[in-house]
């Protein structure tokens, strides 16, 4: 039997709005995904360390504070540094459409803008084992 998909949902930086992160965590868990939610105020270092320790397939970052360019880059760089690039990086939040291609160029696999139906995110997460390098 294939092991369940494991995902870390992280809230990097100082933003305290966690409605989305908690909702996504629960909806994914409903779909059989094993979810670890880091809680608020995580540094990129803490997120990557937890992801490696928990042996996750993917990291989903929730960022509503406008710091996404900085945060995604730091997490991506750390994953590279720790040779953990097989962990797929995705996320969502308040992100201007113009920034999405820049994030994808950085190595972020998918950004989900506000309004994305949660079912689409579940569909994406379930496809992660097929996307891994």
């Amino acid at each position, binding site marked *: 039997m294939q092991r369940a998909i494991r995902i870390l949902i992280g809230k990097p*930086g*100082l*933003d*305290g*709005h*966690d*409605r989305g992160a*908690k*909702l996504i*965590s*629960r*909806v*994914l*868990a409903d779909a059989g995904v*094993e*979810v*670890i*939610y*880091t*809680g*608020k*105020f995580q*540094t990129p270092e803490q997120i990557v360390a*937890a992801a490696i320790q928990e042996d996750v397939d993917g990291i989903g970052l929730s960022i509503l*504070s*406008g*710091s996404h*360019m*900085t*945060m995604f880059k730091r997490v991506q760089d750390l994953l590279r540094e720790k040779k953990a690039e097989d962990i797929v990086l995705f996320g969502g939040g*308040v992100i*201007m*459409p*113009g920034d999405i291609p820049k994030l994808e160029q950085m190595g972020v696999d998918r950004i989900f*803008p*506000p*309004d994305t*139906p*949660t*079912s689409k995110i579940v569909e994406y997460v379930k496809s992660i084992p097929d996307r891994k390098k």
Partner: protein
Amino acid sequence: MFDKEYLKKIEAEKKRWEETTLKERLAQGKEMRDSFKTDSQIEVNRLYTPLDLEAVGFDYLNDTSWPGEYPFVRGIDPVMYRAAPWVMMQYSGFGSAEETNRRFKFMLSQGASSFAIALDLPTHKALDSDDPVAEGEVGKVGVPIDSLKSLEAIFDGIPLDSIKMFVCVGMSTGPIILALFLSLAEKAGIDPRRFGLFMTNESLMEFACRGTQFTTPAGHFRLSADVVEYCARNYPNFSPLQLCGYHTREAGCTAIQELAFPLANCITYIEEMTRRGLSIDDYAGNFSWFFSSSLELLEEVAKYRAFRKIWANIAKNRFGAKNPKTMHARIMIYTGGSHLTRRQPYINIVRTTIQALSSALAGVQFMNLSSFDEAYQTPTEEGATIAVRTQQILAYETGVTKTVDPLAGSYYVETLTKKIEDAVYDYLQRIENMGGAVKAIEKGFYQSEIAEQAYRYNKEIETKERIKVALNEFLTDQEVKVASLKYDPDAEKKTIAAVKELRKERDNNKVKQALENLRKALKGTENAMPSIIEAMKAYATVGEVGAVIREVYGKYEEGMVRF
């Protein structure tokens, strides 16, 4: 209210109507659903009549009464908007102190009567702009305030006493904000009793929601209480505490919970002030209440009416308030951003209009409207201007301001008002049974209740039980291009340079001494405000004061959750 005989006639007639006209109509086609509920899950009947008023015990003289008189259902002022519209505010702040100063001046020039200062996240969390953890966050969601110098720049050319009142948010930074404004006033030679500073300062709710706390619950509660006490004894013209239902509603809770959560928190503050030797009339009349105006128009009207009655009752009958002013609920609203959509953003202007309309019909005191582009960014000038214009149209073109509490007597609205009132008391009792707000938050009750409602809402959207235009229905292919807010890309760099410069040019001995005094005061039981004021006057930074607080009370850490 009605003669018993007349009511019997109405009842009989209702039956006749149901068995004839209604029955014929339903035979031609059913209603869309078997049961209709408000946004907060209250059952909505097909029709409301005087029978419903009777059923909820509507009593004009004893329950509803007169505006400006207990229990204030109809409004806290006898003439309401006939004297002046509500205060039209705009939540502003971003980039740098200078950019924020420019935006404030612009909004005032466009007719905003006031503003609410948005702080950036490092400031909320008592961190300096050059703290490594603040990288990428400086000036994004609000203005960075590193010290008194920042506040001087924000208010450059805007004398503190030139605006009747303004709000500075910050649920956890209350004491720092108070100290900064008192220092600014002293420096400018302005008597602090000549302006109305409204502070949020409600740190209990941070642990349930919102989350910009920077130390432990004990530390924050002591400091929030210090602010309330200090203002009660020295600056009764300030509003030292704004109880908030807004954030929990935005996180997903119902209108009932939105009222009950901050009421429970308020009770905790009242009990603390009693311990400190103050009577409710000494301070609670200066509180204000902050709510999220939602889209279910008539429920929102009923919500605010019910709230005024509940607060008046609790203040008077539970805590013995004698002064009518103490029993007034001064209500500030923000149109809830969670109701806006990212796609087809201009339709959000329609949404915020309805949210604001409900608030005007309900008789609130202060309004801030969301900008149509909030799902993308901090508002542009265009977005902020439309938000103010919306308020101006409501105030000057719709006529809703010409009479007090226009929806009073509506069979539906009065029924809803009573139902909400009853439900809030029930919910409040549940929180009390747990030991009150602090215990309930510690147990995770607020948090789990909120998350449960957010989950339910999401399910309704996914299943289309709830239609949301431009979200799950009525979509278009075209992506609307929204003009970007032009951030100065160097704002963060400049702000960081400025705080580093400040630390060189100030009297560092004075700062060191002030921080040492602060440390002592925090470890003691006396009100810590005088030493926080001393520190800010000496140009200590927000982060330095935060560091001392964290040193004494501890850092706040969240744990991991497995789903």
